[in-house]
């Protein structure tokens, strides 16, 4: 099977030729297979968000190639091959919850009736049925983020790109959101690229954890998470889970020390 995401020798330089030139990413190579859940973890400024934006073609690479579903990233963006979730829910406050979820469908001129039923379906998936006509500011942070996930899923993309989506949530809400996201991933068979600061979150959700280091941003280690595919509250209490958390922690420490 061809990889869903293929990052081939990608480097990214910001402000090239200027005094504040920064080498954000250096020679990144990474293939993500269909159905994988890959978390990218690393210290602040290691370029993990930049890497996600390269996959989504929100910024172009300075060198190298990014393929999504075998196509160049710009074509994949035009084809709506991925859904994106940011750290801030980024809901449009002038739209109701349902209208926010419908936004990508509106842009593709999907008929109203179909838009509404698909939004309802997605909101049910993130357990927000009955909140269709609420406004974003009437929801808690966790609920807003669930709306953002519903919006990312409504185009039925095979690939989900998530940039620290639960970074602003408290620990308890975050664990609950982790569980919900895991369930959605398990049910829908999506491929996910997930940026995070949290080791626990990365291990719980992922099939693979990619550890990055700073200055320049590069991949220092890739750790396979060999936990069973189905995960729940008990997973967090297994010995293997703790071992993997420690493995990632040590890898991060080495990355920060520049080893």
């Amino acid at each position, binding site marked *: 099977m061809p990889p869903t995401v293929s990052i081939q020798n990608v480097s990214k330089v910001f402000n090239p030729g200027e005094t504040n030139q920064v080498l954000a990413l250096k020679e990144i190579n990474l293939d993500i297979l269909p159905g994988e859940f890959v978390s990218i973890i690393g210290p602040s400024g290691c370029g993990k968000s930049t890497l996600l934006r390269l996959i989504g073609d*929100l910024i172009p690479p300075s060198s190298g190639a990014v393929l999504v579903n075998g196509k160049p990233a710009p074509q994949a963006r035009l084809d709506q091959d991925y859904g994106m979730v*940011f750290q801030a829910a980024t809901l449009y406050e*002038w739209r109701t919850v349902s209208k926010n979820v419908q936004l990508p469908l509106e842009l593709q001129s999907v008929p109203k009736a179909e838009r509404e039923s698909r939004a309802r379906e997605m909101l049910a998936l993130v357990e927000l049925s009955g909140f269709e006509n609420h*406004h974003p*500011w*009437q*929801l*808690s942070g966790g609920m*807003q983020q669930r709306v953002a996930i519903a919006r990312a899923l409504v185009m039925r993309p095979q690939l989900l790109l998530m940039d620290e989506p639960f970074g602003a949530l408290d620990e308890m809400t975050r664990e609950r959101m982790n569980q919900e996201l895991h369930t959605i991933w398990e049910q829908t068979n999506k491929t996910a690229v997930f940026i995070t600061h949290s080791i626990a979150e990365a291990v719980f959700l992922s099939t693979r954890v990619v550890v990055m280091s700073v200055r320049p941003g590069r991949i220092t280690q890739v750790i396979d998470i060999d936990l069973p595919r189905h995960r729940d509250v008990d997973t967090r209490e297994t010995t293997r889970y703790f071992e993997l958390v420690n493995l990632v922690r040590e890898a991060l420490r080495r990355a920060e020390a520049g080893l």
Partner: protein
Amino acid sequence: MAGQTTDQTGFSDVAAGVDAVIPARKQSWFQYYLPSILIFIFAIVTWELFVRLFSIQEFLLPAPSAIYNSLSLNLNQLLKLGWFTTKEALGGFAIGCSLGILVALATARWTIATEALMPFAIAANSVPILAFAPILNNWFGVDNPLSKMAIVAVIVFFPVMINTVRGLTLVDANALELMASYAASEFDTLFRLRVPNALPYIFNALKVAAALSMIGAIVSEYFGGNRSALGVYITQEAAQFRFANAWAAIILACIVGITLYLIVLTVERFAIPWHPSVRGEER
């Protein structure tokens, strides 16, 4: 964007929707405005007493009662004059605001044009445009209401244009990336993101413009205008020492100015009920 579940009314539950918020505020309307009403009455009474106790000459400051007498005596004439000037203000407001928004929409499409134009717009906004009133009177004719509309239009144009450009460009970076991730067209990004984002800025500018338009119309009439204009009447009555009449006309102008402002405020409530300033979170 908003991340809280508790609104003003104390509902901590998400089920407390818009419907729950608005009636709660209506109930306390009288209580809310009572202090302001009391201050208003106090000010009028103090003014009246001050004029009577110290026998203030009318040309310095007429008593509220004298102004009221003049107002009720000349009400028909004043309303006619007032309507004439209000039409000038409204005409200028409509022309200036529409042009301001249209130019902003046009320049927002071309970033380079905006960057080149903004310094001039901001400079023009701090120029005393009223100083040009005599010149515009000359261009369009002193009697012609168009000369006053032109002044009002120029006065309101700049704040509306500058604010609209701000609203169109000061958009959350993630919100823009989201549109980019959908491969949305420039047109869709403009009308589904930038314009709704600009509405609160536009309404703020329209509120300023509503007040400015009446000021602009009256003051430009001070430089000469049609005999049936409020500003002309004020200068005439003042020149002939009928100060209570002049004050009555000024009060009428104030009422019109405030009314225009309130109309914009009401339209704003219906147009952007989602904005924090409207739903009452910024109090």
